[in-house]
């Protein structure tokens, strides 16, 4: 019974350099490779400038996954590429706060807010 998560990626209409990554379910060490498999090609694609993670239906993630998000932030921010977390719940907020990642990565309460923030980032 490996942990299950459904990960889908969409491009923002008219803005192929903004990707919305929807994560549904739970993320831990057992399915982190699956998550990395989806994300790594996008990280390698330098034309992708903004990553919006829609975490509305992410029920759980552990420290391994936080570590991967920290890696993503570090890797992308070096090249002025951005991450936005959207719609995360209290459990996700707790662990992000615990390690301080919430102070580094911009977060938005709604997906619409995240998309708006992505527009602003692109114009900066």
């Amino acid at each position: 019974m490996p942990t299950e998560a459904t990960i889908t990626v969409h491009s923002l209409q008219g803005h192929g350099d903004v990707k919305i990554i929807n994560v549904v379910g739970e993320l831990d060490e057992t399915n982190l490779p699956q998550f990395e498999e989806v994300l790594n090609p996008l990280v390698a694609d330098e034309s992708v400038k903004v990553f919006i993670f829609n975490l509305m239906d992410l029920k759980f993630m552990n420290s391994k996954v936080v570590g991967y998000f920290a890696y993503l932030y570090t890797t992308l921010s070096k090249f002025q590429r951005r991450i936005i977390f959207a719609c995360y719940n209290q459990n996700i907020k707790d662990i992000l706060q615990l390690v301080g990642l919430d102070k580094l990565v911009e977060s938005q309460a709604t997906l619409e807010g995240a998309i708006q923030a992505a527009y602003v980032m692109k114009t900066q």
Partner: protein
Amino acid sequence: MEKQTVIIAITADLDYSGLVRHVANEVFEHAHFSKAWCGRLKLVVDELFMNACRYGSIKGKSVVHLAFEYDDQGMRFTIEDDGTGPQAKSAEELKAVIQKNAASMDVTRTSGRGLALISKMWTDGMVVEKSQHGGILISFVKRLENAESPPLMAPMALEVITPEPLQVTVTPVPPPPTAKATPVVKGPVVEIKLSGEIDQSNLAERIAPIASQVEIMPNGGILALDFSELIYINSTFIGAMAGWYRSLLEKGGTIRIIKPSPQIKEILSLVGLLNVLEIQE
């Protein structure tokens, strides 16, 4: 409520992590923890199970033993492995690692990123000892928010580090001369020396002068934090530092960390700040 006990013996396989989390959440709910605390304690259990499987057990062969004991006062959770994993440590070795890294809370660098932070911040005490099953026994206690009695178990006995009192001195330092003939407009470098430990007990008084300095930093200003005598920083201070960094970045400035210890560098690395801030060894 009379004392309740739930005991589980489960094959050491991370594929059962979801099941363990589900059961843990059910038990914490039954013990009347709030929804928020159920989520946090579920994460602690997940981290401990992950470490028992990865380091103390042979996948698919070993058995990991979990026990939840709870009453009106709170919860005691215990997890034990058989110590057969190729990277298993003895309880004494793990405690030595814990003591060595106590200042940075990097308790289990060899047994799981984040466990130290999580256990330290979210439990009322953790104990590491030898298990009757051959490996390590780790237990933690958590009191219910409205419990009035003392904790069920004393906090883990760690080596107490008594630091020198924290000192903050603000010393304006002129910017270094540029080698180029073309003048470069840069703001000043403001150096702040920190020493000892920064934790919840002294956080506010330590943050305030730095935050005030950040507010008045001119464009291009560099906030140089001298960490050469700093032993420990907690996650809230790291968060504050990240906030200062963003503020300075908007004004074309940055933060320079001078001579951080390996333990502090490890924490900065964990949250991704190590490659963002300027580090001066």
